[in-house]
């Protein structure tokens, strides 16, 4: 892979998207089958439900070099598991506010509801998030210098 990345380009953020299996992951699939592009630096981890996403996973992603983390689930009311995303909503609302309280940029973490039918929206959301994070710049406040050692 080295030969692909040797050229130091301008800042391209590293973005992790947690997508629930039923809506958002399917939405991403639909974006794919509709050939609706978004940058390659968005990488998706499949979880059964947005409520499976532990704040620890988000912090871990930042530690490991993510510049932005986005969590996608079914629209509230449409959760495949009935109430999962309602808990997600509270968990993330309090977590985001808390992270910002500690001085972490509030734009860095985001929640978006994307249904299985919203391929276009998935792509639009990702494009927008990449743009936001690119403007925001590298994640320095929640990164772990040890991880990047040697880079």
């Amino acid at each position, binding site marked *: 892979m080295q030969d692909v990345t040797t050229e130091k380009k301008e800042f391209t953020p590293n973005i992790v998207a947690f997508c629930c299996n039923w809506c958002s992951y399917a939405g991403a699939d639909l974006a794919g089958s509709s050939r609706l592009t978004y940058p390659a630096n968005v990488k998706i981890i499949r979880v059964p439900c947005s409520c499976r996403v532990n*704040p*620890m996973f988000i*912090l*871990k992603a*930042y*530690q490991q070099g993510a510049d932005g983390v986005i969590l996608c689930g079914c629209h*509230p*009311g449409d959760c495949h598991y009935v*109430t999962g995303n*309602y*808990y997600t*909503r*509270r*968990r*993330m*609302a*309090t*977590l*985001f*506010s*808390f*992270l*910002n*309280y*500690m*001085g*972490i*940029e*509030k734009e860095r973490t*985001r*929640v*978006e509801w994307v249904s299985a039918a919203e391929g276009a929206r998935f792509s639009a959301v990702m494009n927008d998030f990449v743009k936001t994070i690119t403007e925001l710049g590298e994640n320095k*406040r*929640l*990164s*772990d*210098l*040890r991880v990047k050692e040697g880079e």
Partner: protein
Amino acid sequence: MKDVELKMLERAKELLASGEVARVVGWKKGDFCYDPSPAVFKTVEELENGFVYDYFCGANLSKYLIDVSKKEGKTAVFLKPCDTYSFNQLVKEHRIKRENVYVIAVECMAKLDIEKIKAKGVSFVTGVEVVEKDVKVSSLYGETTLYKPEIVLEKCAVCNKTHQVKDEEIILHERPVRDVNRFAEVEKLEAMTEDERFAFWKEQLSKCIRCNACRNVCPACSCIKCVFDNPNSGIAAKANDSEFEEKMFHIIRAYHVAGRCTDCGECSRVCPQNIPLHLLNRKFIKDMDGLYGEYQAGESSEGKTPLTSYTEEDKEPNDVFNGEAK
């Protein structure tokens, strides 16, 4: 306070002597006037030799009941107003066997912080006498009078808690109900810029030596095995090897007790580096109050916490910054 102490001692002796309880959880005299320790008294003699209740009995005894309430026989415990919230929360989480505990509610009148007294330049404290808002501090080097609100424990400075649990009470002096805003410090931080807040916490958390005192004293941190000690959790660590680790520990710690933290203030009391840890927990409390309606953990021993309930109209995470939360 002396009269309360005598009454408590008398009652404890009675309970033990009559066999009503097998043990009493209270405070024991230390080497100085300011260092009592939590203790379990099993005999009248032990009580006579060391029982104390004074202005330095700040420790929250409720967490000890997790273990003690499992023992044979009933346990009597002295709980200050703030301690009863922790007690309730632990009962709610099935960590304390309520039927094995006899709760004696005791008055508090705010506890003093020896570190704050020392910081006023008084060393070698030999005794204190509290008269209203004046504290006469005697030391080897003489006597001084300090203003009480400046030398009480942080948790006491903003306290307006009342006993939530009592099987009986020993209250000889009523503490006036006060109008205090425990979120004032949180609001100050919120009013700062992102950069300022980041700098503030960076400096504060850089002091952390990861001694786990805050965690181990916390009544909400009652896990049999903490995620930070569990190699399978993916975040286990023993030292703050990096700035990230410092933040990680305190974010997760605060998050794990969010909705369960009663704001008992023990974390800040025990921090050897005096990191204002309560400001982390209180941020969660304030946000949850603002977003989901006022909620005081430990007010009841039943019901769900804000993070284990929901409404269909809850605010979106991306919007909290424009709303009540901030």
